[in-house]
């Protein structure tokens, strides 16, 4: 018995949703274990063998928690914000091809879709900050919008470098174009592009050293300070889904996606391994550096990263155009 195409799509979407949520919950454990190792701690250990059931315990705990809505909050905006934040953060997984033909929708404008949808998270973020009617949350949301739009540009231009090299916006075509050599291995262009991508990711994900949004010592928990229970869980889920999707995109754009030795069915494994390496690299930075100031963050973006990534893109484009020898 074969299902009609729309039912097949629905099943695929359901499976992908479960995979993403499972992945995200377990990556939080990975990060906590990794951070603990860096600080000579053990990390979560008591729930299940070696703390393996910790993420499930966390989810259950958050589900049972009382939901406190501040009396002065804008109820509609406040309550809708977690959903508005979660949807774009998880939706970007839709276009990622995990292996040849294994992805929900291999759009012909995959990169553009990813970039466009991933920056929609600031709508949910600002809704949360505004709706809470809390000064910490409001300041954090303001900083967040300011920082995310500032780093969106270097992020886009860095992500366009592989697009120029591959000559396609389709994610699977970008992987195929790296069959000979990963884009990260292209002399100078690839390395600079990858570094720019990583720095812009750190900032766009509000990770240390760019975490002025949630800066514990000044803003408590940032825009989610008033959230509790399941709404808090949805925001955290969205945030981690976003950073993991961005790690996957980084692995795809610069590290050759599913390409690797061994049979084809190992592709998804290779891709996940590379994405986790990117994620751990970002985590490594997070637990090694101190937070930098707002003006420094904006100066790095507008005065250094933006012109540098535009120039890098132009150099890449010149090289590609010159080598292909098209046109005149």
């Amino acid at each position, binding site marked *: 018995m074969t299902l009609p195409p729309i039912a097949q799509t629905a099943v695929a979407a359901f499976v992908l949703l479960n995979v993403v949520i499972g992945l995200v919950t377990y990556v939080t454990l990975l990060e906590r274990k990794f951070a603990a190792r860096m600080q000579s701690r053990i990390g979560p250990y008591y729930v299940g063998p070696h703390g393996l059931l910790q993420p499930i315990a966390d989810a259950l705990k958050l589900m049972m928690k009382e*939901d406190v809505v501040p009396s002065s909050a804008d109820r509609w905006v406040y309550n809708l914000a977690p959903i508005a934040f979660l949807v774009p953060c998880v939706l970007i997984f839709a276009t990622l091809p995990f292996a040849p033909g294994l992805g*929900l929708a291999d759009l012909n404008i995959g990169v553009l879709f990813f970039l466009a949808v991933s920056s929609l998270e600031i709508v949910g973020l600002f809704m949360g900050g505004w709706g809470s009617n809390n000064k910490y949350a409001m300041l954090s949301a303001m900083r967040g919008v300011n920082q995310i739009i500032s780093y969106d540009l270097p992020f886009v231009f860095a992500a366009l470098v592989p697009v120029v090299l591959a000559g396609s916006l389709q994610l699977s075509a970008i992987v195929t174009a790296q069959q000979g050599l990963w884009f990260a291995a292209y002399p100078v262009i690839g390395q600079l592009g990858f570094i720019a991508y990583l720095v812009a990711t750190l900032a766009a994900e509000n990770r240390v050293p760019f975490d002025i949004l949630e800066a514990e010592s000044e803003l408590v928990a940032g825009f989610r300070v008033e959230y509790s229970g399941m*709404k808090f869980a949805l925001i955290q889920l969205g945030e981690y889904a976003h950073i993991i999707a961005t790690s996957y995109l980084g692995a795809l754009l610069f590290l050759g996606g599913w390409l690797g030795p061994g049979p084809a069915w190992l592709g998804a494994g290779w891709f996940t391994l590379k994405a986790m390496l990117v994620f751990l690299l970002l985590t490594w930075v997070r637990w090694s550096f101190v937070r930098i100031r707002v003006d420094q963050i904006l100066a790095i973006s507008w*005065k250094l990263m933006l012109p540098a990534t535009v120039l890098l893109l132009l150099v890449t484009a010149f090289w590609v155009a010159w080598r292909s020898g098209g*046109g005149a």
Partner: protein
Amino acid sequence: MSAYLPVAIFAAFIVAFAVVSLAVAWLLRPSRPDPVKLMNYECGAEPIGSAWVQVPLGFYLVALIFIVFDTLAVFMIPWALVLRTAGLPAFWVMAGFVGIIGLGWLYAYREGVLEWK
């Protein structure tokens, strides 16, 4: 448009997941509100005034420059795709365009718009 159908279905599933998990939490969780608990968090102090304040002009300027460069990015995406066939002439056209925007960037830099005050 059929390529986007899976994306729409996936988006619907995500919304459904969020709504269902919120509903389950609503069934399971206790609810014992009291006025002090529902006060806005401000390190235990009673908040003075609302948080809905006016926005400093600095944000506006950053947003303006952002729109300029975001438009540049929009122009660059199709350009990046045809670069192989259009070759160097297309490159020089875009280089000139980036040069003009670069002058604007330089002007904003000299005027101190990129400083955060």
